[in-house]
């Protein structure tokens, strides 16, 4: 999300051969969506995940997110787990990269061990939820190719629909269809199609709030898995921007002292 201006220039240059094509329009929308979301510096949020099985039974995960924007590469982020209690004190640190696999570390509090792990499991479920790691992590425009589909209305709002195709071969998806608010350039809904081109999941963004006068963030995000009938709802609370996080706060050395 950082270094948007040079990226934009580069991508627009490489896309110039496709002038005015559906691919070009899709890419431009992805970049404007990224630009609308960028420039926050850092933020923290408290996150509650509610996991519902087929019978509608609920189990709750609680965690804290800390994210730091970097100017050259992808975000640095930490997730600290509070609930369920058996994973309290577990923490995961991710350095997202525009190119190549992310760097990822886990802190296992029982063993006081920081373990660097392979981050190729993009399609794997995050804490047993219907969100895959790739749905949760920071998404860079460079990770997809695009195709503009058309203009529509979604819940009475004018939207632009773009298909995006993951370039990472470890992705669990063949395609994602994104409904973008035409004015605010924020996602309202994403449909995920599996490698067999079948509809797998729908992600719906609820109750967008404006922070710092320029950052729209959803208070609730819902992910429905159509193939297994399970559902996960994520609630974001206590969003704080510009909290003064620095590289040391998002380092391997910081992991053991996070509670």
């Amino acid at each position, binding site marked *: 999300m950082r270094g948007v201006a040079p990226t934009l220039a580069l991508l627009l240059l490489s896309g110039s051969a496709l002038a005015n094509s559906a691919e070009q329009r899709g890419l431009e929308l992805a970049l404007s969506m990224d630009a609308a979301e960028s420039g926050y510096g850092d933020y923290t949020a408290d996150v509650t995940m509610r996991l519902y099985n087929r019978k509608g039974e609920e189990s709750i995960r609680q965690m804290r997110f800390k994210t730091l924007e970097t100017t050259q590469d992808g975000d640095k982020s930490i997730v600290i787990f509070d609930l369920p209690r058996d994973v309290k004190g577990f923490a995961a640190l991710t350095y997202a990269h525009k190119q190549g696999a992310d760097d990822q570390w886990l802190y296992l509090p029982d063993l006081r061990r920081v373990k660097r792990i392979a981050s190729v499991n993009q*399609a794997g479920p995050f804490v047993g939820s219907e969100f895959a790691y790739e749905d949760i992590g920071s998404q860079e425009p460079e990770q997809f190719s695009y195709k503009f589909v058309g203009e529509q209305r979604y819940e009475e709002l004018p939207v632009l629909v773009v298909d995006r195709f993951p370039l990472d071969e470890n992705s669990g998806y063949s395609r994602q269809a994104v409904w973008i608010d035409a004015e605010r350039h924020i996602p309202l809904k994403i449909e995920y199609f599996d490698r067999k081109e079948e509809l797998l999941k729908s992600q719906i963004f609820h109750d967008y709030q404006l922070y710092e006068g320029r950052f729209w963030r959803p208070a609730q995000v819902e992910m429905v898995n159509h193939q297994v009938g399970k559902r996960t709802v994520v609630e974001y609370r206590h969003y704080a921007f510009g909290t003064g996080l620095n590289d040391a706060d998002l380092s391997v050395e910081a992991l053991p002292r996070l509670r």
Partner: protein
Amino acid sequence: MSALLYSGRSLPRWLFLVTALGAAPPLAAQWSGAVELEGRRFAAAPAYPGQQRDGVALRLRALYTREWGEGSDYFTCAPVARIDSADAARSTLDLDELGWTHLMSDSELRLGLRKLFWGVAESNHLVDIVNQTDLVDNPDGESKLAQPMVNLALFGTGGTLDLFLLPGFRERTFPGTAGRLRTPLPVAENPHFEADQGRGHLDWAARWHYSIGTLDLALSGFHGTSREPNLTVDEQGRHLLPFYPLIDQAGLELQYIDDALIWKLEAIRRRGSGQRFSATVAGFEYTFYGLADGRSDATTFVEYSWDGRDAQATYAMDNDLFLGVRFNLNDTSASELMLGWSHDLDGGGEMWMVEGQRRLDDNWRIGLEGRGFQSVDAGEAAYPLRHDTFIQFTLERFF
């Protein structure tokens, strides 16, 4: 509590000052903990006089943390207690952590009783030398005792440099006369030290850790009393006497991540009490993702251990191959199961292990652990345990 692991005799006085920091004005303070019931069942009758057959243990652990100075200071206290039905030596009261951490711009000062982990391998932890091994808690050697330390960590573009002063030696714990998983003769409680100061010898250690892309490199050094005692039979032939020599140890850790494949190497060079030797463990882990239902994964481990001491070592994997697989269902219950098998390539025998756990709900978890010893040779470190194949179940309640 029939045995207090920390009687205070090796506890440096300044630790009490650290405790006082727990009373500083808090920014945020919190309590958490768990109660755990453990039942152990052995496959065969005990081999040595005085041993009980099976055992039930109750564990209590708590963690208190507080933070102040806008997140620059942290205080942690983690008491642990265990009562065991079979072995009095397994009924203990201890501290897993009692410490103060102070953050500065490019460094961190950590004071108190702490546990830390060095290393990359799964089956053998050669480099990990700071904390003493707690064999009473678990025969696998992964359970450790907190070590009194002053640790200054320096962060920079050239990596991280950790400097340690380690006052207050802690002896290795061994099961008591009534306990299983012990040597034929119980280990005596009055150890001998090469250092004139005994437990009071001031040890030091340093470790430098650096990453280049997905390659992690660490070099470490240690000077002080060995965590691994030499055991000799006493004059009456009734006990094993632990002798802790002074040693110097250099350690190397390498890990390289290549997508789902992770290469690992640990090596040490140790000298002390007229002995010099090297030991190493090397191997890889590879993860198969999206199995069966598309959510599960299986991580396979292949590791080879070699030890220059051959079978003289008290816990040596001298020429051993370890194969393991860990299944993660990645379900709501966070179910996982690990199976491991280690084979002595000199024909000295085989060991297997199983470890699994599953969350029952937000507060409860069950666990399974087992270890087996098969046709272990008389010369091998695991020979005394050949009748001690066991399986244990645990039930944990978190609060």
